[in-house]
């Protein structure tokens, strides 16, 4: 444990880095999937190819992407941009399906009512479609976040920040403590982020929590 005390500054730094590397792609992925998903619901022939493409991209091995991307992007091999781009690609490939499913979960009569009472398209999408799609989108967001947190550790193999560095340190020095600390902290971080997302979702969708419809005899 004294090792943790001695290295607390380093661990905090790595925590910050790990979070940053995992969450930025999550946010970027969401920002890209939302308009893409919307377009796919407008032009429904686009939906299946997009989801299929997402499946293919997601199956690419991460370590390969981390190494190939610098060649494509012209970045340094050690640049965190590679990780961010790679994880954003994974995020989009997962989220696209949830965004499409989420937007499709908006009941037809609700859409019809929204148009009929005089919502313009943009306003309708932002204030009716999207809020109703939140539960389905958040399911994807949680998977992406946990997956990103674990994949950031892989980045350490090629020498980019986060708790993964603890693993590399541990292996190099044949010393178990940093590895254990790294595993525990990654898990804890994933758990905390997941709980935070669940909390955020509950905050955003108070209406989805009304469990047993309280139907009164009086009408």
């Amino acid at each position, binding site marked *: 444990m004294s090792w943790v005390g001695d290295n607390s500054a380093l661990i905090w730094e790595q925590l910050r880095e790990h979070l940053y590397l995992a969450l930025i792609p999550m946010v970027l992925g969401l920002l890209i999937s939302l308009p893409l998903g919307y377009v796919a619901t407008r032009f429904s022939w686009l939906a299946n190819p997009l989801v299929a493409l997402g499946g293919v991209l997601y199956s690419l091995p991460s370590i390969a992407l981390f190494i190939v991307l610098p060649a494509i992007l012209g970045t340094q091999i050690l640049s965190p941009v590679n990780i961010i781009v790679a994880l954003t690609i994974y995020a989009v490939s997962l989220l696209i399906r949830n965004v499409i499913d989420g937007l499709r979960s908006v009941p037809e009569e609700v859409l019809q*009512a929204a148009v009929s009472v005089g919502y313009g398209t943009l306003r309708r999408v932002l204030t009716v479609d999207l809020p109703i799609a939140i539960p389905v989108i958040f399911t994807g967001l949680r998977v992406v976040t946990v997956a990103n947190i674990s994949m950031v550790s892989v980045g350490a193999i090629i020498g980019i920040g986060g708790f993964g560095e603890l693993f590399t340190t541990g292996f190099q020095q044949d010393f178990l403590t940093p590895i254990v600390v790294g595993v525990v902290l990654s898990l804890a971080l994933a758990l905390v982020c997941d709980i935070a997302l669940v909390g955020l979702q509950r905050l955003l969708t108070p209406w989805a929590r009304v469990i047993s419809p309280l139907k009164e005899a009086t009408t």
Partner: protein
Amino acid sequence: MIEFEDVTKRYPDGTVAVDNLSLRIPSHQITVFVGPSGCGKTTSLRMINRTIERTSGTISIDGEDINSKDAVTLRRGIGYVIQNAGLFPHKTVVENVATVPKLLGWDKRKARSTAMELLERVGLDLKLAERYPAQLSGGQQQRVGVARALAADPIIMLMDEPFSAVDPIVRNQLQEELLRLQRDIGKTIVFVTHDIDEAIKLGDHVAVLRVGGKLAQFAPPAELLANPVDEFVENFIGKDRGYRALTFVTAEELRLTDVPAELTRAEDGSPKGWVNGSGELEPVGATFQRGDSLRAALDAVLTSPVGKGVCVDESGKAVGVVEYAALAEAFRP
């Protein structure tokens, strides 16, 4: 007045949903589009707020072509109610009702207070205002749907089978309340239903459509019952149309006879029962008032143990009775 002139709707797949419809929908009244499923009622209705664009012809509101302003502006001035209400599940009841006022840019407080007034007006318990739609019964949701449609005080309200999905008792209540509400607000209401009884009950005018989107007959309900233009309309109206037509004849002219001694009355003059041969009291049966229909009078006669229907005044006091003979006179054309 909403005027359809030679309006046709052909969907991209070639289906002609509405064929050359010409129709004048009078202001401040309820006009019902009725017809079998798939005859183009919804299409006709939704062409009015341009959620479906017609293929040809013109539709105008008070002389102004509905294409003269943009569709979104047009829709904010037209209330719209659908089956299952189509409430926004993520908004509370009061937020649902305040939707159009907010779209129109009213300040929050005014939008909210207007919404509360309307909820009260449609008979919703205000305790439910902060609930979400999923926490309401079907009938309650439908009331909220009507309140939402009326929130910005539109001149027109479009209703597409609004009461089809609720049980018969609640449907009946909602129909009565719509009629009561309409007496106060006098909107131009276009109401779609596949139920001819609902059409006859609610409509000041009824447009019967046949499959293929053709207008079969456009008339007040009494006229429709008395003179269906063809076999299709007659079949669609169904059985008992002669009997149902009695709803539209008042009992005003009916010849009454004096209240006989066998009708026991309470101190205030209200009927208590008929005394039969063995001196026992039998129930009065249904009663009717002068302003009611012949149907009510006939019902009073049919439910009376002695074949005499009791007519009462506003206060419930028996003022006379009607016998078969007097009814038969009234039925004679």
